């Protein structure tokens, strides 16, 4: 059981030493070798000896971490916590992999986190938005309850964007505007987070780059998606109505003439009525044979009118929106690679 636990410890420790920065110090390498061989006594003495030598920051953090694991393996939890506290102060962003680290070492690391004041995992999201209509999300974790002040420092700008007493994860929404309401000028800025508890304080920063761009304008509409204009005229089906009506009109005229003629005046003359009536019937017949003229489709005309009004109204709104957009600025905020940790 004990051997398995130590193997896990060793596996967890190995990647740390094999990270981008490598351990050059021979004593520290010997201590690491001893830990890999589960020789805790040798690992402890070599690790302590390495700390007395000249080490880089990275090597020093590795040396304390090795001591933390060694003390955890030796069930000396308080000393393990002290060693991990040094690791956290040296590398605030340092985290142990819970799947590859022994519970004892993990718990010692967690206890160490609560005993030092650091700000970890300061993160600024990349975001683009129209000035005044969006926010930049900033989040960080403070390990102890503390007064935390967040500032944005630029070449000509110093803005305090948040001040709070907090512990744990904190989320800030920064609108990227000056006190006057104008968007911040383009350039490189630092988001600085300072935590203070009594005499202890810690600060960390994240560089960001703010760029300005033109806000995209909306294109004018020529049609509404899903709606098309309908033909405003339609050819009615061929019918005998013109012929029928010509017959009816002529019939009424001739029958009326005949009916209203006075009996005293002899036989009614239908010559004049017949000639004109014949012309009417002929015209009706020709019109019946001809392709009917297109007629206005009232429903379609009203539909098209509504569609045109909708498009016109929408274009008016788009024009107003574009006028407003041309006066706006598009802000892009991008976090820059971190230069170093906190202090």
């Amino acid at each position, binding site marked *: 059981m004990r051997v398995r636990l130590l193997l896990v410890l060793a596996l967890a420790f190995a990647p740390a030493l094999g990270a981008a920065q490598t351990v050059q110090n021979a004593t520290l390498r010997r201590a690491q070798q001893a830990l890999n061989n589960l020789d805790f006594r040798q690992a402890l003495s070599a690790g302590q000896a390495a700390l007395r030598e000249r080490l880089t920051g990275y090597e020093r953090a590795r040396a304390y971490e090795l001591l933390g694991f060694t003390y955890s393996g030796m069930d000396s939890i308080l000393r393990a916590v002290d060693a991990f506290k040094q690791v956290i102060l040296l590398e605030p962003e340092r985290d142990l992999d819970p799947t590859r680290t022994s519970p004892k070492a993990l718990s010692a690391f967690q206890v160490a986190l609560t005993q030092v004041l650091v700000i970890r995992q300061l993160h600024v999201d990349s975001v683009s938005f129209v000035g005044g209509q969006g926010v930049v999300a900033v989040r960080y974790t403070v390990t102890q309850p503390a007064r935390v002040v967040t500032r944005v420092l630029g070449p000509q700008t110093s803005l305090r964007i948040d001040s709070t007493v907090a512990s744990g994860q904190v989320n800030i929404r920064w609108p990227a505007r000056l006190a006057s309401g104008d968007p911040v000028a383009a350039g490189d800025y630092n988001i600085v987070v300072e935590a203070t508890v009594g005499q202890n304080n810690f600060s960390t920063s994240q560089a960001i780059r703010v760029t300005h761009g033109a806000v995209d304008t909306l294109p004018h509409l020529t049609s509404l998606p899903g709606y098309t204009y309908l033909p405003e005229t339609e050819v009615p089906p061929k019918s005998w109505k013109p012929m029928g009506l010509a017959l009816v009109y002529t019939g009424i005229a001739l029958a009326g003439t005949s009916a209203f003629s006075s009996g*005293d005046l002899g036989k009614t003359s239908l010559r*004049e009525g017949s000639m004109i009536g014949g*012309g*009417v019937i002929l015209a009706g017949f020709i*019109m019946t044979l001809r392709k009917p003229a297109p007629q206005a489709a009232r429903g379609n005309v009203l539909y098209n009118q509504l569609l045109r009004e909708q498009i016109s109204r929408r274009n008016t709104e788009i024009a107003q929106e574009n006028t407003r957009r041309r006066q706006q600025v598009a802000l892009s905020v991008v976090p820059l690679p971190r230069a170093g940790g906190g202090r």
Partner: protein
Amino acid sequence: MSEKRWTVGRLDGWTVALTLVLSNIPTFQLSAQHFSVGPQIAFGDYREVSSDLHYRGSGIAGSATVQWKKFSADVVLSKLKYKPSKDGTATKEFDASEVDVRLRYYITGPVSGELGFMNRTADPEFEAQSVGAVTAGAQMAYLLGPGVRMALSGGLMFGSKYSGGGSTSALGALHLGLGLTVEALRGRVRVTGDYGFQRFSRTTNDGSGDTAAPIQQSLGRIGFALVF
């Protein structure tokens, strides 16, 4: 010979001028007002008092139409020479000059209301009755097809006055009409055909009681009109 050539040349000139004018007159089909005027050939049948006084004749007429919004007005002038028909006993011909004025107001659908007056004078004065009356009635118009329109009208004629005296009851005088207009040359010219029937149930009284002396005319007119 030269006189003849000059006449033909002048006719050609008028034809060319008319064609140019017609081709340059803008159409006002979409505007609110129209005006048309044109000549017509008229032919008619006239009867009076009995089947013995039967005349048939022909002549010329002219019609003018103006249209404005829902209003329209027709003015028809005609002059016919009526000759005694062979089946009658009349011996003298006469000229009938008629003025027919109608003011029309569009009501709904195909229906328009009509109000107007007519006056017909006979020359020689004693060969036939001159008559005048106020007309009121209605017209139904229907568009048979593009540019082809027919109309049926009818109504009563009130306050009839006759040169030879006599009277007519309120419902005793009526008129009927049938018309056809065909637009040509992009609506600049209208070919027109009109039929009108008038009947007056006139009665006279020479002291021996009322005597029927009806008057009846059937008139056909065919022509064209220029549209402005």
